[in-house]
């Protein structure tokens, strides 16, 4: 009996965030007056747009480094790739592949740098990765504003600011829809971009396969106990760096997929929120800082964006003010990350206590014998 109530409690604390979210959505959907078809279309679009970015967070979680808010570094690499192929006038899916090709070495370099920094901040990786992304964002802006068009050749005047150098803030992408339009099949009245879905499926397969490799196993070991992993001869620091590199690369491709769907590139603050929304999606899906699965990522993306679509309209219909809905959804986005992080930190303390209580029982049993 005690066991049963404990497992119920465990399930509740484990899925408190998704339950909370589903509740909010269930209340808000009727209030928004959106049709089911509209919502279905929106969800499909947003799932295709965002899932890849969310998936890029999984591997550092496995390596015990928490949520890699430094995925923004990869997003920046992807944007650099897109700007170059736009300048060179390469279109369609091929252009996107070229952008990924350009972005990859940059992402590897940034990921390597990020990994080294995070190795020096063990135990506070998340805040450090977040600050690192803001720091690199400064360098990225410097690169875009002053080097592009000056030292880095950019020909297209459409990309450059009127002063002759520096990239404009809003860039229309020629490659818009490059993946989405590839295999676009209507199911019912909803158009489903199978091209993009194939890429997302590829990412999922990659992650599943990766978990089964030796390197994946090493990462799991490092993630659970660095000391033990080190004693068994696993190169802890190197493994952690590799996990960040992979995450950064995936984030680079994820941002390219995201932007080909959006169609315009917001050069200077487009990447900033990538990590917030990705982190929130993952956590809404029931993931924690130490355990995240592919279903967590996909379900979380769907749920989070459902709320994101519905909330402003629901807020407007309820209160007559569109602003309220807007603020409310921002509050929820940040709030959900806060709650998920707090629950996880709190649960970790509880588990430690429970483990010790268990130890005490065992030792008292032994004396009893």
């Amino acid at each position, binding site marked *: 009996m005690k066991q049963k109530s404990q497992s119920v409690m465990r399930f509740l604390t484990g899925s408190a965030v998704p339950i909370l979210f589903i509740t909010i959505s269930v209340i808000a959907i009727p209030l928004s007056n959106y049709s089911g078809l509209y919502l279905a279309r929106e969800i499909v679009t947003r799932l295709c747009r965002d899932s890849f970015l969310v998936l890029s967070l999984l591997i550092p979680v496995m390596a015990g480094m928490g949520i890699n808010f430094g995925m923004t570094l990869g997003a920046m690499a992807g944007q650099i790739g897109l700007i170059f192929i736009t300048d060179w006038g390469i279109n369609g899916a091929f252009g996107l592949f070229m952008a990924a090709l350009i972005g990859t070495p940059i992402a590897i370099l940034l990921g390597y740098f990020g990994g080294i920094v995070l190795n020096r901040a063990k135990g506070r990786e998340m805040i450090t990765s977040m600050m690192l992304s803001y720091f690199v964002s400064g360098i990225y802006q410097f690169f875009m504003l002053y080097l592009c068009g000056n030292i880095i050749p950019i020909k297209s005047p459409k990309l450059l600011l009127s002063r002759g150098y520096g990239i404009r803030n809003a860039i229309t992408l020629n490659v818009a829809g490059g993946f989405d339009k590839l295999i676009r099949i209507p199911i019912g009245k909803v158009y489903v971009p199978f091209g993009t879905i194939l890429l997302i499926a590829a990412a999922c397969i990659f992650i599943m396969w990766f978990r089964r490799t030796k390197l994946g196993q090493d990462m799991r070991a490092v993630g659970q106990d660095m000391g033990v992993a080190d004693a068994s001869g696993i190169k802890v620091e190197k493994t952690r760096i590799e996990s960040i590199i992979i995450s950064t690369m995936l984030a680079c491709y994820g941002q390219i997929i995201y932007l080909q769907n959006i169609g315009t590139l917001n050069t200077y603050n487009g990447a900033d929120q990538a990590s917030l929304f990705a982190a929130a999606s993952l956590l809404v899906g029931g993931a924690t800082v130490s355990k995240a699965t592919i279903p967590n990522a996909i379900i979380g993306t769907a749920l989070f964006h459902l709320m994101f679509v519905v909330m402003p309209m629901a807020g407007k219909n309820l209160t007559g003010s569109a602003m309220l809905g807007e603020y409310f959804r921002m509050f929820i986005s940040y*709030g959900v990350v806060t709650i998920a992080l707090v629950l996880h930190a709190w649960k970790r303390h509880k588990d430690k206590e429970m483990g010790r209580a268990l130890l005490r029982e065992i030792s008292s049993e032994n004396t009893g014998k």
Partner: protein
Amino acid sequence: MNRVKEGIRNFGWPRIIIGLFLLALFIAGPFFGVATDMSLNDVIVRFGMNSVLVLSMVPMIQSGCGLNFGIPVGLVAGLFGAVMSLEFRLTGTAGILVAFAIAIIVGAILGLAYGLLLNKVKGDEMIIATYVGYSIVFFMNLLWVALPFKNPSSVQGFKGQGLRVTISVQDYWFHQISDILAIKITNNFVIPIGMILFFALMSFLVWAFFKTKTGTAITAVGSNPDYARAAGINVDKMRVISVVLSTVLAAIGMIVYQQSFGFIQMFSAPLAFIFPSVAAILLGGASVNKASILNVVIGTLLFQGILTMTPSVINSAISIDVSEIIRIIVSNGMIVYALTRKAR
């Protein structure tokens, strides 16, 4: 030679580099037509505006709660105090005192809740504080729109509902502290003695607090919580006290800022204060678990110096605006540097 090296190491390379850079800017300024007295004026005024906010970092760092990335918890209390004072249409000294009083009360309540939360998440304070800060700002945004504020100078003109993004305090308590005993040196250079004195007063209170029995206990908790526990100290309580103190100071700092700036910046504005405040105290030589008032003074002067001087001097020198980017790189770089330093 060794002593010189030791001294440099204690003072820290980041401070020396930024300090020399700032000095170079001051020397170069006149050659590019930047008036030195105006620069000095800007630096000192900005010091006065921001120093209390930076000071609010000290209690939490000292108690081991880390850098207060959740400073918006205090800032929104400051905003609340300010708009309530306007709501009562109080002007002059009475206006600012009421603003302070309300801000302190709200700050203490929010700080208490914030402190209790941080006790639940020991070891992860900083990342969670960041998100708590963001969450509360957007939560308060809901209130700013929804609460029935009446004063026409704070309410959005055409709708009559919800607060403006920036609210002028010109007719209420503009420069109430800045103008106390202000000394005019040149036309461009007025020392806001009032603000400096106010910062000195706040610093004295913080200093005095850390000289009391409780303050001593808080320092010990930050230095080694296990030691403190073995001395019979309630570690959690000490941490909550420090968080309340930090939050209240941030609320006060917000109002000092507003009275000098002349406007209350509502809505998402508090978010812009997080990283500069954290970076400033680190630039002043604080680490993730030790900070002093000297760190606050040096850090705020250096940081605000860079903020003031780079736009004016560098932009006139090479006629491009890199100041914003320098600010981002210096402040965020400083925080990354502090986070990656080996905790002693």
